[in-house]
C-alpha cells in the first residue's frame, strides 16, 4: 500500500459534527456533582477527620493485605478446581460427569454466605479428623480446630464456591475450540488428557481470561462476606470493628471502599493487559495475515487515512 502516489485522493478534512446536547448534559452533571461535594464536605456524619486518621491505619492496611490474600488464595484454588471440574463435565465417563454435575448443583444452588457459615461450623460438626480404616481405632487423629484456622476455612469456603462458577467459564472456553483440533490431536495418537492439556485448553484461554478477570474482581468484594465464618480480619470486618470502637460508622465505610476501589482499579488494569495478550491473532481464519489486532489501527477521526495505513505497515 504505497501512500501518496500521484493519483491518490487527498485525505478527508471535514468539519467535525457538533453535539451541543452532550455539552449541556455534562455541564448539568458537573454542577450537581459540585453541589454534592460541597455539601458532603460540610456534613458531620461523613467524619472526614476520622477518615484521614484511619485510611492508612496499621490495622486497616493489615486487613487490606488479608483481603488480598483471601482473594488470591481462593481464586488460585478455584481456577485449578474449576479446570478439573469442567474437564470432568466434558468427560465420556458418566460417573466422573455425574460427580461434577452434583458439585455444581450444590455449590451454585446455595448462597455463598450460607456455605461460609457451614465451613465455620465444620469444627463443630466434625470435631476430630481420623485417618485409618473406618470403624477401627484410627492411626492418626486431629482436633479439627487445631489443624485449620478460620482464615483457611474462609479460603476454602470462597474457593469451593467460586470453583463451580469457574468450571462453567472454563467449559465455555473449551467448547469454543474448534472440534477439528481435538480430532487432529486424536489422529496423531494423542490421548484425551494430553489433547486437553496441550491443544484444547491453551486455545480456550482466550475465551476464559476475560470472565476470569471479572471473577477475580468479584471475588475481592465477596471476601467481605467472610464474617459468616466468622473471620473478621479482612478489610470490611476490620473497618466495622473500628467503627464500633469509635462510634463512627460512615468514615470507616469510606475507608474500606477506598481500599476496595484501589484494588479493583489495579485488577482492571491488569485484566486489560492480559486480555490484549491473549487475544493476539491466533485464529485459524485464512485471511488473518495481519500481525496486530484490527483495533490497533483504527484511524482516528482527525487523522488522515493514509497515516493509519502507514502505521499498520510499520507495525509489521
Amino acid at each position: 500500500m504505497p501512500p501518496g502516489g500521484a493519483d491518490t485522493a487527498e485525505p478527508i478534512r471535514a468539519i467535525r459534527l457538533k453535539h451541543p446536547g452532550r455539552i449541556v448534559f455534562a455541564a448539568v452533571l458537573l454542577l450537581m456533582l459540585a453541589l454534592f461535594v460541597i455539601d458532603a464536605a460540610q456534613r458531620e456524619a461523613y467524619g472526614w477527620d476520622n477518615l484521614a486518621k484511619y485510611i492508612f491505619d496499621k490495622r486497616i492496611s493489615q486487613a487490606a493485605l488479608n483481603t488480598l490474600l483471601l482473594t488470591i488464595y481462593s481464586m488460585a484454588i478455584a481456577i485449578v478446581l474449576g479446570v478439573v471440574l469442567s474437564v470432568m463435565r466434558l468427560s465420556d465417563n458418566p460417573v466422573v460427569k455425574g460427580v461434577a454435575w452434583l458439585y455444581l448443583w450444590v455449590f451454585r444452588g446455595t448462597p455463598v454466605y450460607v456455605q461460609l457459615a457451614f465451613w465455620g461450623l465444620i469444627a463443630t460438626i466434625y470435631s476430630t479428623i481420623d485417618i485409618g480404616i473406618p470403624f477401627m481405632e484410627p492411626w492418626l487423629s486431629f482436633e479439627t480446630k487445631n489443624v485449620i484456622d478460620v482464615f483457611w476455612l474462609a479460603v476454602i469456603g470462597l474457593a469451593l464456591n467460586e470453583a463451580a462458577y469457574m468450571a462453567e467459564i472454563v467449559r465455555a472456553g473449551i467448547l469454543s475450540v474448534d472440534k477439528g483440533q481435538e480430532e487432529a490431536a486424536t489422529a496423531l495418537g494423542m490421548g484425551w488428557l494430553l489433547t486437553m492439556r496441550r491443544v484444547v485448553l491453551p486455545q480456550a484461554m482466550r475465551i476464559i481470561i476475560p470472565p476470569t478477570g471479572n471473577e477475580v474482581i468479584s471475588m475481592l468484594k465477596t471476601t467481605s462476606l467472610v464474617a459468616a465464618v466468622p473471620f473478621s480480619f479482612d478489610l470490611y470486618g476490620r473497618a466495622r470493628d473500628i467503627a464500633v470502637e469509635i462510634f463512627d460508622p460512615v468514615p470507616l465505610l469510606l475507608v474500606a471502599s477506598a481500599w476496595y476501589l484501589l484494588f479493583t482499579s489495579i485488577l482492571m488494569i491488569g485484566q486489560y493487559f492480559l486480555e490484549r495478550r491473549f487475544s493476539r491473532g491466533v485464529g485459524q481464519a485464512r485471511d488473518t495475515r495481519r500481525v496486530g489486532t484490527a483495533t490497533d489501527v483504527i484511524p482516528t477521526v482527525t487523522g488522515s487515512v493514509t497515516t493509519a495505513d502507514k502505521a499498520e505497515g510499520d507495525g509489521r
Partner: protein
Amino acid sequence: MTGTPTSEVPMVHADRVSKSFGSLEVLKSISLTVNRGEVLCLVGPSGSGKSTFLRCINHLERVDAGRLIVDGELIGYVERGDRLYEMHPREAARQRRDIGMVFQRFNLFPHMTAVENVAEAPIRVKGMKKDDAYARARELLARVGLASRADAYPAHLSGGQQQRVAIARALAMEPKLMLFDEPTSALDPELVGEVLQVMKQLAESGMTMIVVTHEMGFAREVADSLVFMDGGVVVESGDPREVLSNPQHQRTRSFLSKVL
C-alpha cells in the same frame, strides 16, 4: 509401483464395513484392499460417505459391521476366540500413531508455530527428545518446501503452506499409512498445485495412501486404483485411467461429467 508379493498382507483391508448414524446408513458393506506402497483415490458425490470411511480407518468413528484391518491388525476391536472386545482408548491411540491423517481444513494447532506443530506428537506421544524432534521437524518442513517458514504461526501461512505443514505433522509420526480427506478442497485454485506436488512426491517415496479428492488429474497421474463411491456403496473401482476414460456405470458417468 505394486511390485509387492501377493502373499504379503495388504496395508488396508476393508471387509464389508458398514456404519450408520442413527437410522442413516452411511456406509453399506464397503470392501476394498490397498496394498503396500499403493495410492488409492476415493471419489464420489458429497454425502456418499468418503470422509466417514476414512475416519473409520483410524477409528475416529467405530464401524457397526464388518472388519477393518490395517497391516494385519484389526482396528478398534480385539478379537479373542470368536468374541470381539472394545479396545481400550490407549490401544486405539497406539493404532492411530501409525496412521497419518490430513484434513480438508488443515486443523493445525494455531497456538504453535509450524515446527512446534510438527514436533508436538513425536515429543508427547513417542517421548522423543526435544532437540531430536525439532531437528527432525525442520527436516520434514524442508521436505515439503517450508524450511524458511518453520517458525511462523499457522495464521501467518497461506492455505497451501498450512496444508503442507499438516502433511509434515502427520509424517512426523512415521506412519505406515496416510489418509487425506479432500486436502485441497479448501484451497484457492492457485495453491492446489503445491500441495498435490508434495503428495505426489510422497507417493513416489513409496507411502501407502488413501486420498479422497476431486482432483481427477492427480488420480489419473498418481493413483494405482480409483474407487467411486455413491450412497455408501462402492459403485465402481479399478485402474484410474480405465475408470476415468471408460466408466461402466451410469452413476459414475454422471458424476465424472460434473467434476471433469
